[in-house]
């Protein structure tokens, strides 16, 4: 594999950065959702919701931006993937709708049945959303059937192949662990103690999934491994990722939750880098390699890619500024008051 520093490669990287930003940020609030039902009292559930209250919709904007950037920079990929994964994607969208509504509506009424319904909806939609993100990525890596015009020729059930499902489950475990550490950071007292009692399970589950996924990928998905045969130096990425993953339980054991949280975030960067290396210069692996969608046959014109680079150059520093400002303003332990969810 040779890496070219052309516009298409830069945009491949930038779209990757946006999806990584989404994974790190929305990842923890999806994880909080996955753990939501393990809490017991109403106050604990409100604390869970309010720990992500000011930030979850901003986190979701990363997905919207990544989607917009994909549309702008690689319209062929955007069109193929979203039409190809039609029903799976619709399920994903429905889960995001239910999730947003559950967060917003849950505490607006006092009835126990009302709150129970939205609690369940919040948890199920968070898990389903995470699972589907993973399933989609697993399919892109494993290969989907496309015809010469890049139209998807498979079926919905064909997308639920064991390998993509494995990636889906791994994604759920990753987000849950990430969310769990976030809850420990944002809470105190009984809820924090409870979150601490979960953490060995969530870390254990993720490490198990991570190991199985690594072995299965090496054995069963040769396209994802080929770059390392051609360029052995790249092996540094999976090795560093392994070290970072190993660091997560270490930091938790020593009670350094901030570092543990950073480690899970870096783990996501590492795993998505592995995904990117395995795909490049393809965007979608296909069962028939001549029909693959690459960053070249899927891209917009160089002029648009240049314009987009300028837009990103102006916009992203602003975005990072607001993001840092908002997280700073809402730093510290979450408390409930009359503006809370």
């Amino acid at each position, binding site marked *: 594999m040779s890496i070219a520093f052309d516009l298409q490669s830069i945009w491949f990287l930038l779209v990757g950065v946006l999806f990584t930003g989404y994974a790190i940020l929305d990842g923890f609030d999806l994880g909080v959702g996955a753990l939501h039902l393990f809490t017991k009292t109403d106050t604990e559930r409100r604390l869970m919701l309010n720990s992500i209250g000011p930030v979850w919709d901003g986190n*979701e904007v990363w997905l919207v931006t990544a989607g917009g950037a994909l*549309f702008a920079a690689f319209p062929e990929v955007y069109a193929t993937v*979203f039409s190809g994964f039609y029903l799976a994607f619709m399920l994903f969208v429905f889960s995001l709708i239910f999730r*947003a*509504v559950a967060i917003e509506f849950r505490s607006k009424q006092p009835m126990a049945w009302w709150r129970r319904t939205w609690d369940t909806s919040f948890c199920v939609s968070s898990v389903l959303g995470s699972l589907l993100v993973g399933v989609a990525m697993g399919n892109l890596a494993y290969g989907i059937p496309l015809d010469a015009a890049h139209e998807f020729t498979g079926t919905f059930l064909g997308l639920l192949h064991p390998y993509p499902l494995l990636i889906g489950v791994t994604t759920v475990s990753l987000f849950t662990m990430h969310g769990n550490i976030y809850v420990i950071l944002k809470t105190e007292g009984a809820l924090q103690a409870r979150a601490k009692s979960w953490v060995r399970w969530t870390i254990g589950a993720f490490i198990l999934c991570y190991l199985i996924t690594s072995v299965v990928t090496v054995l069963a998905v040769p396209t994802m491994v080929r770059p390392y045969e051609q360029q052995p130096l790249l092996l540094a990425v999976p090795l560093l990722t392994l070290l970072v993953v190993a660091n997560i339980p270490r930091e938790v054991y020593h009670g350094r939750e901030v570092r543990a949280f950073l480690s899970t975030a870096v783990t996501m960067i590492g795993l998505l880098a592995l995904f990117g290396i395995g795909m490049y210069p393809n965007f979608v692996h296909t069962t028939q390699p001549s029909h693959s969608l690459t960053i070249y046959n899927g891209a917009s014109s160089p002029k648009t890619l240049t314009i987009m680079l300028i837009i990103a150059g102006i916009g992203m520093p602003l*975005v990072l500024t607001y993001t840092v400002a908002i997280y700073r*303003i809402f730093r510290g332990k979450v408390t409930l008051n009359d503006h809370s969810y």
Partner: protein
Amino acid sequence: MDAVSLARLQFGLTAGFHYIFPVLSIGLGLILVIMEGLYLKTKDPLYERMTRFWVKIFGLIFAIGVATGIVLEFQFGTNWSTYSRYVGDIFGSALASEAIFAFFLESGFLAILLFGWDKVSPRWHFFATVMVCLGAHFSAVWIVVANSWQQTPAGHHIVTDSAGRVRAEITDFWAMVFNPSSVDRLSHVYMGCWQAGAFLVLSVSAYYLLRRRHEEFARTSMKIALVVAAVASLGQLFTGHRSAHYVAEHQPAKLAAFEGHYPKSAPADMLLVGWVDEKNEQVHGLKAPGMLSWLLHFDRSKPVRGLKDFRPEDRPPVQAVFQSYHLMVLLGLGMIGLSLMGLLLWWRKKLFETRWLLWAFVLSVLAPQLANQLGWFTAEVGRQPWIVYGLLRTKDAASKSVTSSEIIASLVMFGLIYLLLFSLFVFLLNHKIKHGPDAPPATSEETAPGEDAP
């Protein structure tokens, strides 16, 4: 029904439902800036209570706007993949700009607006309100630019690549952004949004006055909303007129459908209400002869291109466009009448006692919503049979790999989910309105115990 019609139905449903909410965020955003600005200026706690009350409602509206908006961001890809391939080089950059410049601003500062009352100073809170309002306004810029490019494409050329694929590619970014209809349509959309926000506040205030609850709160809110409603409703005369001008110049078939004008070259009438006889290519109704010619050219005898100038396969569905356009105009005139009547009675110091007008205000919340929906329906159906005017037909633009039964499945789900969402939205909105603003001695000063940020 074929797959393309189903995809259109789904897009119409999801876009129409979504369009209830951002319109309110934009309009209410402006009103929040006014209310909180008055609070900072006068330090009158009444304005603070008003801001806090409407911020809560803003939060509710915003959440549903986000949830339903994500659907649209991806629906171009899921249901209109041929279209996405054709326009991605142009349309995609507008959509990405929307996210980068508008959504981050809006969602980031919304956190401060909703949850930051005790975390930042009043000035910073006001700054956040202004940013949320700006973000909401920016988001409209990019989506209207993208849609306007579909109406009046500019700054592009058509390219066929080595594999034989045809698509539009950008040649001039600013010509694309300032395509012939962007500015007129954006101002038309803004006025519609301000109307939606203003009439919502008017309606709730009128309801309180009729029920004799929170009267001081309601009177002051009503004055602010009435001014915004009057400015936006009168502004709509101007922006609507400008929009008709660009339609006449760039989309003559759409303009002809607005008034059911068939003759190839004859002065065109304007109708107040009417019925199009599509079979005999005539229109019947209450006419002002030559009025459309006069509005466009200041000459009642000047000819206007009619539908007969276009091949039948290039004409939009006339009756639907005619009726939605006229209903929108009538609603627009009604809102002007209502807001001017309000101003007149305010001047005569009878505004708060005139019960029939207060009742009309209560119901008036529906008028801008309906007019906004009808306006988009007119714009989009009037563009048919094209998805990109003159370049790509709607029937050729849908996803080829998505079957009718898949669309039926998603359409049914959207129908059910949106019905549920809408009922819950109305239920919670009603609940918040019935609950009303918090009592004057604001409880917000107390800080929750244990609030020790490191």
